[in-house]
């Protein structure tokens, strides 16, 4: 149906890479495709227009003419523009010189305000602040109750009263003084539409408690409407920042781009899951990289550096080049990957993954079963799986709490992968050579500079031997 934005751009850029020069006609054609891709990602039509305009202007100009590799240069321009639009730098909350600092959340119904309030409280608490959660959403049935429960879960005091939102907010400040809390988070009511009642209520609360931070909560799945919402709230109460929620889905999050462009204030946080600790600072550069199909390379590299030891890295590379993989190596590699977190997450960070792989459903429990099977083998069996006969199979099955069927399919699957690896041995060398040649001066810490070089070639042409599943 719809290809993810990164897939689209992948396609466009691979076409670009094969070209020597970038003519004005090329730029026009590519711009059209980027426009399409951005629209499919729900970036607002008008934002797309101005974005494309800026990219085109820069691309047709001298910058590209001077560049050695026009394709790379173009990618760089698009990436830079994306980063610039998304915020350029990571934003911060404003702290009041006289505590408590007040933060007010605003947004439409269902955008995730209440959950965001609790998650934010948890985050701030872990940073050494003393937050107070305030339930001023007296509209939605049980909204106050929801926040009270969540406050209990994150172990942060809670305040509300069944009067009116303004009194609640005022009372909350007194409560904060009384309890010695230095950060007050006010959850407000959402409305189905941007209406005057809602805006008046927000204005009244803002007037009563003078928040240093008014944050708009926006659902990452929002479509074209995001622009209107952001505009309306910004006009009414003056936004200081944005929280983007539900980015753990597969929406491309074009709304982020739209809102940022309209409000001009940083996207501060992103909600990344249902659990209360799944909430983090928003990284514009990473988001842009992801949109560009470079995966969350920065995050991945950080994790790899933290988890892989130097010699282990070398070993893995040798392994790849030799094209020989034993179950023993496999087990070892598996341990490394496991340290980086759930496999599905690691997978999501890899750039240009073939779709079949990226969409694969992986339960980490399955990995545990595989591990159990391999661990139930003798070292000799791990090196030479062909040794495994009927009685050995029975023993392994009993030892790992699995069945002989599972062992059979594991061995069969492993054999296929082995063959595939053999086919890829040469490719690993090639990709490495390419990386060394082009990226030497950049070093491993600047993957953002890598898009044109090295590994993006892997998914495109590198895995022809994919066994059908």
């Amino acid at each position, binding site marked *: *149906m719809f290809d993810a934005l990164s897939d689209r751009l992948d396609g466009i850029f691979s076409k670009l890479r094969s070209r020597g020069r970038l003519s004005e006609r090329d730029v026009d054609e590519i711009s059209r495709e980027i426009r399409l891709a951005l629209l499919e990602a729900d970036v607002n039509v008008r934002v797309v227009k101005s974005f494309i305009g800026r990219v085109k202007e820069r691309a047709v100009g001298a910058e590209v003419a001077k560049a050695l590799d026009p394709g790379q240069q173009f990618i760089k321009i698009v990436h830079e523009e994306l980063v610039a639009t998304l915020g350029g730098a990571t934003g911060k909350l404003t702290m009041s010189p006289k505590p408590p600092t007040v933060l007010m959340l605003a947004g439409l119904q269902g955008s995730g305000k209440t959950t965001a309030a609790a998650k934010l409280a948890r985050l701030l608490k872990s940073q050494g602040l003393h937050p107070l959660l305030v339930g001023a959403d007296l509209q939605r049935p049980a909204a106050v109750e*929801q926040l009270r429960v969540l406050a209990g879960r994150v172990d942060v005091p809670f305040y509300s009263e069944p009067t009116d939102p303004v009194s609640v907010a005022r009372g909350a400040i007194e409560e904060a003084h009384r309890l010695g809390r230095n950060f007050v988070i006010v959850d407000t009511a959402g409305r189905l539409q941007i209406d005057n009642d809602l805006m008046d209520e927000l204005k009244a609360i803002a007037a009563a408690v003078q928040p240093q931070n008014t944050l708009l909560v926006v659902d990452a799945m929002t479509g074209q409407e995001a622009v209107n919402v952001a505009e309306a709230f910004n006009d009414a109460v003056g936004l200081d920042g944005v929280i983007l929620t539900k980015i753990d889905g597969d*929406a491309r999050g074009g709304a982020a781009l739209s809102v940022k462009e309209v409000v001009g204030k940083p996207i501060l946080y992103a909600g990344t899951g249902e659990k209360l600790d799944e909430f983090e600072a928003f990284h514009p550069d990473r988001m842009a990289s992801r949109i560009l199909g470079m995966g969350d390379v920065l995050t991945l590299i950080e994790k790899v550096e933290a988890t892989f030891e130097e010699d282990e890295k070398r070993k893995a590379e040798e392994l790849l080049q030799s094209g020989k993989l034993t179950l023993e190596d496999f087990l070892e590699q598996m341990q490394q990957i496991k340290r980086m977190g759930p496999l599905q997450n690691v997978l999501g960070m890899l750039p240009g993954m073939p779709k079949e792989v990226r969409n694969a459903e992986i339960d980490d429990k399955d990995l545990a079963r595989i591990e159990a099977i391999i661990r139930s083998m003798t070292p000799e069996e791990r090196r030479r799986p062909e040794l495994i006969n009927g009685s050995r199979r029975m023993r392994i099955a009993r030892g790992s709490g699995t069945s002989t069927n599972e062992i059979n399919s594991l061995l069969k699957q492993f054999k296929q992968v082995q063959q595939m690896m053999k086919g890829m041995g040469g490719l*690993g060398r090639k990709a490495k050579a390419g990386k060394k040649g082009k990226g030497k001066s950049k070093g491993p810490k600047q993957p953002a500079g890598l898009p044109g070089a090295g590994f993006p070639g892997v998914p495109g042409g590198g895995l022809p031997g994919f066994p059908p599943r």
Partner: protein
Amino acid sequence: MVVVILVVVVALVLVATGVFVAVRARRRDVVAGEPAAPPRPAVRTVAPIETPPVETPSIEELEALLRAPEAPEIPAPAAPEIIERPRLRDRLGGTRKAFSGAFGRMRGRKIDDETWDELEESLLLADVGMLTTTRLLDAVRTRAKEASATEPDELISLLRDEVVALLADDADRTLRLAPGEQNVWMFVGVNGVGKTTTIGKLASQRVGEGHRVVLAAGDTFRAAAADQLQLWAERTGGELVRGQEGADPSSVVFDAMSAAAGRGADLVLVDTAGRLHTKKNLMDELSKLRRIVDRTPGALKEVLLVIDASTGQNGLVQAKQFADAVEVTGIALTKLDGTSKGGIVLAIQSELGIPVKIVGVGEGIGDLIEFDPAEFASALFSDEG
């Protein structure tokens, strides 16, 4: 370096998925207590689910039911909403303005490239999506040529016709409810789209029509979700069945159906926790919920996917995933009273053949109305005001 990781991960994934797809398939046959899988058609999405072979009332009968005066024991608050429901057109002011803006500019000019660009932009701004927009405009182009249209007004009217044609599709938009037996409607969707509220409004309407309604608080995840539904139950005169927070939702649904059978309630509205369609385990949980309901053959009449009208192109992916997991029978389009256009339902209808059945247009208890394609389209393209 990254290449290495990539290869290892790929290898891992291949081994993991390959092995355990096989294992899962095998395990599934063994799971205790599961009835032999009910005959679920292998069709993924498009085919309309056939009404089970029970005596369904004719549309006339249902309409008669709808108009029937409320049962005497029903508390007063449920009364007014049946009498006068808001019309879709009155609630689509925002959409109308958006379109009239573009169309107003077109007026009195000749048809040129810019006209087409503006038509395209208007559709895109309504979240119709590129694919469906292109499809619609291609059709309009062909017909405009045939009719040798010269005025932008003609294009707009042709476009309106195309939208109605796309939406109408002879879809059955009634919510199936067989008298004298247990009927179950399930509500699914991503977080924050308004499932619980939609259930509250529907409960109010159906109680008002004289049905005995049980509300099943299947959202055991979100804090206070059951409390929210409880308030709706109190407001509407429905009965609530709930479990502990964090309880297995299928046990709640099972209890609700037993309770409904015991009390002679004919309609069970099942609330479910909002979940992103990308969460495999949560989608599996949903399929399991459906299987629980299916233990009473024929009881499950509707599986409604609730979609927020401000949803962008991801709505199409949502619809596809939920349809794959639980065979969605219709869409409940919520929050259409704002400036949100809800254009994504055009894409969903055209790509997946899932019809919109009900529309939430306001916060009032009665602000839930039937979907009328002609009204939706003309409201969409009306260029007055």
